[in-house]
């Protein structure tokens, strides 16, 4: 399983791995928002936390269809399914690798991008914390969506349609933490709920995703 994780990370950083794609997309979204909303910093400040969360979520979505589809096309999934690694583990590792290559970098660059949107001072810590707690769930739910659509020729759009409603709770609680944090309000409850969802998703979703994958492989 560690070998699989290392291989996925290696593939992501090598040429054509699409490692920087999510970050670039995130940057573009954040840069474009002021052009659409107007340069007024007092208008940007209250929506900054939400925009950063949406940007991170969409950037995460962007690379989901590569997570399993590439391995399906070249036969790797068939071979992994016959290897002595449980498919649940494979999916979990895949989601982990996806998080390490998208969720984690997105979390790290969110704070500097917050400056561009005039995120209020107390919000930075909460923003980073909420993304750190929420993005693993995004990757894991995404792995489930990717497992559902892995056999389809052009599953990308369908994948987004399937995954977006599943992202709602994570987005609500995560963005709530960041928003309340920015406004200097109490953040404990949404933070705990966000963590609870992430933990629940990490515990249960590999089984659903592996089931979907098995169905798609036969």
């Amino acid at each position, binding site marked *: 399983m560690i070998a699989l994780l290392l291989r996925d990370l290696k593939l992501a950083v090598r040429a054509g791995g699409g490692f920087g794609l999510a970050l670039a997309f995130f940057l573009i979204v954040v840069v474009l928002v002021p052009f659409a909303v107007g340069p007024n910093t007092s208008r940007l400040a209250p929506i900054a936390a939400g925009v950063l969360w949406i940007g991170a979520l969409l950037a995460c979505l962007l690379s989901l269809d590569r997570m399993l589809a590439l391995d399906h096309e070249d036969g790797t999934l068939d071979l992994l399914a016959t290897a002595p690694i449980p498919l649940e583990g494979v999916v979990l590792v895949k989601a982990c690798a996806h998080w390490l290559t998208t969720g984690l970098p997105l979390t790290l660059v969110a704070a500097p991008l917050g400056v561009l949107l005039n995120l209020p001072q107390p919000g930075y810590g909460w923003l980073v914390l909420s993304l750190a707690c929420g993005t693993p769930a995004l990757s894991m739910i995404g792995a489930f969506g990717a497992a559902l659509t892995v056999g389809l020729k052009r599953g990308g759009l369908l994948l987004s349609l399937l995954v977006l409603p599943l992202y709602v709770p994570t987005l609500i609680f995560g963005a709530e933490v960041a928003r309340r944090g920015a406004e200097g309000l109490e953040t404990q409850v949404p933070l705990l709920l966000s963590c609870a969802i992430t933990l629940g998703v990490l515990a249960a979703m590999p089984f*659903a995703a592996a089931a979907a994958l098995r169905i798609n492989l036969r």
Partner: protein
Amino acid sequence: MGSIWEYANPVKFSRTVSAVLPYVAAAALGCLAVGLVWGFFFTPDDYRQGATVKIIYLHVPAAMIAINAWLMMLAASLIWLIRRHHVSALAARAAAPVGLVMTLIALATGAIWGQPMWGTWWAWDPRLTSFLILTLFYLGYIALWEALEDPDTAADLTSVLCLVGSVFAILSRYAVNFWNQGLHQGASVMRVEAVTGADTEEKVSNVFFAPLMVCMAGFVFLFLALVLLRTRTEIHRRRLKAIEARERMA
């Protein structure tokens, strides 16, 4: 005979549908006609909401069916996953578009009602938002069915999606409640005084209650009729596909 699983036989199911469908359809038509005419023409206006109260005869039953259609799909998906009865999977598929239309009706009537009452077509109220999310779930579910070629794979995957989606629908409901405490009537369907305004007198509520119940029955029968009909269509389609596959092989 006697066991409900007998009806998992597609041939027997189809035959039963053909026998039962006219009665169910007639019941649906009758209840809807009586309930809607009664509600529309022969009930008084609510003293606060005026004539808009007449919308509940469509809004509340549609909303109820929209939720229960998903529950039915969940049950059917479980039956498919556990007992592998094709009819069950096809019934889930057949129910999805009906559920989708019901959510659309509930959303549309809600928006139209909200315009004069709340002064806006759309408010990000928890109940409305939940229905919007439910619409997305229906869309995703239907799209997944349409996208997959192999019928058994499609049945399996959509069932898994339905299970996972149900969990997330409930999570979303709580999340949305947390996110915005809302201006929708604190309405549970059965508490009519809540539907029609808490301080309305019981006597007045009953005036709305009876036709509402008839409409609800009408929607339930309509749902049943549509699901039976559409399930039979799906069975036919499946059989057609099998025959064509066999022709290709020969």
